[in-house]
């Protein structure tokens, strides 16, 4: 069975500073992984490598059988568009568009067509259907993050990558977002990779990979 994500012997340095060295792991379809570590441990770098926003110095990344790390920029954009959904800590939605318009745009970019029924279903599932026509600046942090999950999932990605999705949220919202992430990813059949230093997520995803301060070891 082809792994949805395979990272093999990844190394990345910025100048003389080594951020990642020899990181390897695999995620099968429907599998979830928590990428833990303090700030500066290389979580975001690893996320950027996985999503093709950075190129590893050594090693390779394969997404559903397609080698992300060896592709050119355009092909990489295309692979990301087809296979990966991304959620960020603060950068969640396009500011000028309503929640529904964000989801429509994401769907259009991903598959070239819009499915309003699917959008309504996702918004309902994430509890933001009543905010469908609101712009991000008019919503609470928790609402925006739930809308961002919907935005990332609406393209039915094979791999859902979340970078610090709960760090800015209070306990209640963090718990709710964690549950929604897992439930919607499961119902969509998406594989989930979450990079966080938020220990509150540990109980929800037992499978974890911890990066050290120097980001050189994986457990």
């Amino acid at each position, binding site marked *: 069975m082809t792994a949805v994500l395979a990272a093999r012997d990844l190394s990345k340095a910025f100048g003389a500073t080594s951020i990642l060295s020899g990181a390897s792991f695999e995620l099968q379809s429907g599998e979830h992984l928590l990428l833990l570590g303090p700030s500066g441990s290389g979580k*975001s770098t690893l996320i*950027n490598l996985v*999503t093709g*926003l*950075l190129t590893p110095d050594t090693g390779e990344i394969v997404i559903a059988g397609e080698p992300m790390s060896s592709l050119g920029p*355009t092909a990489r*954009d295309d692979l*990301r*568009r*087809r296979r990966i959904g*991304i959620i*960020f*800590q*603060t*950068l969640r*939605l*396009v*500011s*000028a*568009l309503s929640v529904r*318009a964000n989801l429509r*745009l*994401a769907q259009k*970019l*991903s598959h070239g067509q819009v499915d309003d029924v699917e959008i309504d279903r996702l918004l309902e599932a994430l509890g933001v259907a009543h905010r469908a026509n609101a712009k991000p600046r008019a919503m609470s942090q928790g609402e925006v993050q739930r809308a961002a999950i919907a*935005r990332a999932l609406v*393209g039915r990605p094979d791999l859902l990558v979340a*970078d*610090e999705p709960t760090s800015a949220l209070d306990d209640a919202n963090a718990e709710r977002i964690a549950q929604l992430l897992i439930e919607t990813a499961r119902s969509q059949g998406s594989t989930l990779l979450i990079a966080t230093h938020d220990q509150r997520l540990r109980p929800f995803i037992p499978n974890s990979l911890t990066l050290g301060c120097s980001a050189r070891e994986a457990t």
Partner: protein
Amino acid sequence: MLSLALAYMRDRQLATGLNMLLLALAVATLTILLLASTQLVDRMTRNAQGIDLVVGAKGSPLQLILSSIYQMDQPTGNIPLASIDMLRRDPAVAQVVPLALGDNFRGYRIVGTEASYAGVYGAQLASGRMFDEHGEAVMGAEVAAKLGAGLGQKFVGSHGLGDGGGAGEHHSHPFTTVGILRSTGTVLDRLILTSVETVWDVHGIAHEGEGQQHGESEEPHEHADEQEAHAEQEHDAQALTESGGQLTPEVTALLVRYRNAAGAIRIPSMINRQTDMQAAVPAIETTRLLSLLGVGIEGARLFAWLLAAVGGLSIFVTLLNATNAREADLALLRVMGATRARVFGTVMAEGLMTALVGGFLGVLIGHSVLAAATRSFSALGDIGMQPWQPHPGELAIFGAMVAIGLAAALIPALRVFKIDLAATLARAS
């Protein structure tokens, strides 16, 4: 991507609206200048076509041209009736059309003339017939349309050449409309034509057998000897200098068409030197007037292009600030799967749509302002301004605005290609 560009424009409505307004003002100014200058030149050229010389009372030659050809200014005075015969006897003259001005009906000038005046502009009757008997009048197309007049319509003229400026109405001499002319796109459309004799009658000037007296129906002396004609003219000219000021039937001006080039050399100097009248050449006076107006028009045009440049610069600054401010948004779009070209296209589309709306609004404002000005200032109506008539040059102005909009958006849009996604996302997070 077009809807995204629209969403960004809606998101900062004030800046977008102001940019559109700046461009619209530039386009409106350019449109007004284009329409006014081209229609003015076109009208002046068309109205003066087929008229080689205007003979009238001494005074400003430009005033004589304006009052006799364009029907815009007060006449310089009257000239003796004998001047018609004097010119008609000249072998170098092909046609002489007398004009007797002095009255108006609701602002439209009543011109005492001959049927040949309509022929100067190739006018044809839309209905009815040309004036013949006393009191009969033929209306220009615009006069009939604006006044809603039809055949048989009676009206009373007022003294003076402008609406409201008259000294009284001529109730004892009502006119009857016997014909309506087709539109010619010339000054004729805004005139009411009648016979010279009717104008004299209306003003109580006694006359008799004028048609025969000044040889209206006679053919010009095509075979007359040039020298003999010249001698006769000198005699007539002397007589004309002595008859000024008498209360006799007179005309306001004569429109002259030469038979050959010799007329252009001899006749104006003869009239100016040997009579109390003056001869003005429409081509010279019109060129002088247009060159005077041209300086102002060019100055205003320069200002309008400056305004357009400011509009373009404003779009540039707005989009540059916007792309800086929404760098994270643009990075998110790229992460969501939008290609560089699509994001580039979104920024370009903003510039393009701003310019398109500004350009469209500008053209609309330009025509509207011109229409309002034509309604408010009678001088614009007098030169036959058609405020809603489009001009091909407007497409060029519109195209230039689109080019300005695209050029202004280009540098901000190119920044999309320089965005380092990982760094931008790291900053945003």
